[in-house]
């Protein structure tokens, strides 16, 4: 399709006699995929780290970019609305962290499960919510994803369990979803997210214990933005190696 467009443009330019600066190269000349070097992961209780070279196709790249860009613009708009007091209460924004949500969603399926804390607008979008539903929920409208009854922190959709306001409470819930996956005998898993602040919650360690004991299909992901509410990680955590905190659970950073 892109080849056709560039062909048409070139033809137009030639017909008009104008200097065709539009395209000296057609899109068809671009490659369909590229290899990228990524940083080596630190590992804990794992024999080998993930690969340091990844291949991404053009379509994948465009899709990721589009998703991240949409999330960014949605969050910036929400920020603006919050400052205008059109969005009330809490509005925890995800701009800057878009790559996490997109990267996670790229490696799981929509039939897998995901649960996160209150910084949830991004995940609501990647899990299947529309921008319209999310903005309507933030502005308290009936067409919101939770009919205006949930607000910023309580958005739900299929295989997405929110949106949880109490710091750390979503971690046992996520392990429970994983238990249900194993109970039902499906090969689904649950991705369970929390922040660097929540990483110090006791219930998370209770969950590590039970998840490891019962071998639940759960992946715990700590999104470390270096601040738990207003407190920096150095002032809150005796160990900032959050990937090692699971102790008997293998970890990656």
């Amino acid at each position: 399709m892109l080849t056709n467009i560039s062909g048409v443009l070139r033809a137009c330019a030639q017909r008009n006699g104008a200097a065709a600066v539009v395209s000296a190269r057609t899109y068809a000349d671009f490659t369909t995929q590229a290899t990228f070097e990524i940083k080596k992961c630190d590992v804990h209780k794992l024999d080998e780290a993930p690969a340091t070279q990844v291949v991404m196709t053009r379509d994948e790249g465009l899709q990721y970019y589009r998703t991240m860009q949409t999330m960014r613009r949605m969050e910036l708009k929400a920020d603006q609305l919050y400052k205008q007091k059109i969005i009330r209460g809490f509005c925890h924004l995800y701009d800057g962290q878009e790559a996490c949500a997109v990267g996670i969603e790229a490696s799981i399926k929509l039939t897998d499960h995901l649960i996160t804390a209150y910084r949830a607008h991004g995940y609501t979008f990647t899990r299947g919510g529309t921008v319209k539903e999310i903005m309507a929920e933030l502005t308290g409208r009936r067409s919101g994803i939770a009919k205006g009854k949930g607000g910023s922190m309580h958005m739900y959709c299929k295989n997405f369990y929110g949106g949880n306001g109490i710091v750390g409470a979503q971690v046992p819930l996520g392990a429970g979803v994983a238990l249900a996956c194993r109970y039902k005998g499906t090969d689904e898993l649950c991705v369970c997210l929390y922040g660097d602040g929540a990483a110090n919650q006791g219930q998370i360690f209770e969950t590590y214990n039970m998840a490891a004991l019962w071998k639940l299909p759960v992946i715990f992901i700590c999104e470390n933005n270096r601040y738990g509410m207003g407190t920096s990680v150095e002032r809150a955590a005796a160990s900032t190696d959050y990937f090692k905190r699971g102790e008997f659970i293998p970890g990656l950073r």
Partner: protein
Amino acid sequence: MATSLRCFLRSGKQAVLVVARRGIHRSPPAALQVTVRDALNQAMDEELERDERVFLLGEEVAQYDGAYKVSRGLWKKYGDKRIIDTPISEMGFAGIAIGAAMAGLRPICEFMTFNFSMQAIDQVINSAAKTYYMSAGLQPVPIVFRGPNGASAGVAAQHSQCFAAWYAHCPGLKVVSPWNSEDAKGLLKSAIRDDNPVVFLENELLYGVPFEMSEESQSKDFTVPIGKAKIERPGTHITLVSHSRYVGHCLDAAAVLAKEGIDCEVINLRTIRPLDVECIESSVMKTNHLVTVEGGWPQFGVGAEICARIMEGSAFNYLDSPVTRVTGVDIPMPYAKILEEHSLPQVKDIIFSVKKTLNV
């Protein structure tokens, strides 16, 4: 022998025919004496059998047969997948149970006593109770939290609190408090079948007490509806409203008072939330006097709520004297036996309150 007798009686009409042919007994199957513990066990057994998604988790529920033996035999019958022993991590395993409920299973989460539920109360309220509303109906949480509630015998302050008022305060929860074996079995089955989070408050002192269970209540489909109180003893002079163990105390008090010519109507609430106000109101409109009896502390308690609701409704105009609340004493539970006994409602306290309300 008891088991075989129960099997015999369960087969209903056929059993009668068989019995008649053998010429042993000509009377129909009698009501059975079943302890509250066995009734709860039957309820869970039947619901585990009926629905694959139901499972039980908690401390000591599997290999130990239950801290109070309520889940005796279930692990042997259903195995590790459906009867799960947890570590001592209430907040963790309550959250796990709720997550499993969100993902489509129907867990029964046992707290060894409701005192330990305080460790997990955030999960019960914020993750279970509020979710259906917050998600505008997208995310139901069909879970039952059960365990012994209130005073036991000599377990002192940290192990004797009644949580009826605490949980009943919260919208999004159903709170149920059975008294006898029929209540226990029927209400637990209803709770497990209910798609809402249900807090099921048992009583440790009642576990070993046998009650008569009608033939109807021995059926696998027997349920008691949540939200409906039961008039255990009809009367005309005064209404006594209670829940759990103190229903028995009210009936004992009523028996004593009957000899003095005072006819008490005793209501067994069965459900604390939603409260069956209509039942209490129609009783008060008949008897004109009301005494509430509960084991919990007086301030902001079940009795306080009943007083407020009666005052707000039409039954207020029928009261001939103020409502009296008989409650546990407003102190942490002491250890010494004599102090413990006097910290909880006794039959004599109920009799005293009735006479004071009736001005006799």
